[in-house]
């Protein structure tokens, strides 16, 4: 259950950004979470709701975009989506795969009411 700690990082980061950018309110926080991160979006939203309750973020939603795991075959160069965590090139069956996405745990942008 490390989602609570991650939720706290999100609250802290966004509050700091609001202060730095002089944003009075935030209505949504857009997150990108890779499928290889072992972060459960539901548990994250639950944690965020608890931790943001007493802050200016109490009205803010978390919008989570799940990022699929993608890789490039280092033998034949083919890019492909890694399905079911099988890191094997569908073209040449090489297991030498470079990850190109799937480990994201990013705050992409904030939605700010006009």
């Amino acid at each position, binding site marked *: *259950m*490390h989602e609570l*700690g*991650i939720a706290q*990082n*999100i609250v802290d*980061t966004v509050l700091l*950004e609001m202060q730095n*950018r002089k*944003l009075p309110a935030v*209505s*949504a926080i*857009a*997150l990108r979470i890779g499928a*290889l*991160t*072992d*972060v459960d979006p539901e548990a994250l939203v639950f944690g965020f709701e608890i931790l943001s309750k007493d802050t200016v973020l109490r009205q803010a939603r978390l919008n989570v975009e799940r990022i699929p795991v993608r890789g490039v075959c280092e033998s034949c160069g083919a890019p492909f989506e890694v399905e079911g*965590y*099988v*890191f*094997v090139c569908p073209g040449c069956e*090489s*297991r*030498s*795969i470079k*990850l190109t996405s799937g480990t994201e*745990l*990013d*705050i*992409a*942008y*904030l*939605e*700010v*009411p*006009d």
Partner: protein
Amino acid sequence: MTEKVTIEQKVLSENDRLAAELRQKFTRHRVLCLNLVSSPGSGKTSLLEKTLAALNHELKIALVAGDVQTENDARRLERAGGKIVRPIVTGGACHLDARMVAKALEAVPLEGLDILFIENVGNLVCPSSYDLGEDMKVVLISTTEGDDKPLKYPGMFRRSSVMVVNKVDLIGSSEFSLATVRENALTINGQLTVIELSCRSGDGLPAWYGWLRSQVRR
């Protein structure tokens, strides 16, 4: 109406920053740092006890032992001959983070050290997101667990460089198959180095020591 304000920040940027500082220090002092991860009970502490007994006279080893509660593992490592052992009691947290490791290492001189082992909290999920500045993650699995574990925890097996399969002396007492666990792990991570051993019988331990020697930076 709303306006989008792009911020593009990593959620764990503070952890990553501290981990990068640690990595820089380890590199500067030519210390090999290994982050040991596994389920509870796979044998992380046993493997470190054996490693100390075998290599303490030729390599200078420091250890950080993380647990949710108790300093039992740290005490075991001291009894096994560990000269520099720092416990981290997380008090509930399911993983170590870079800040905890940096704090535990505050008074530890890195000069002259060959290997720093970080024994993470027994958990195959949460520690995978937290960089501790290590050179490599070493994931342990034991033959009393399921041989499908790599498929259940792909994040950790993908991020690890070495898989140690412990308790091979118990093979035959369960349905665990070495060939299956190897195949499952290599499907997730084709670059994984696989070392099979038993801390109890001693089988395979020389291969582990040999691998450690080959990775030491001096």
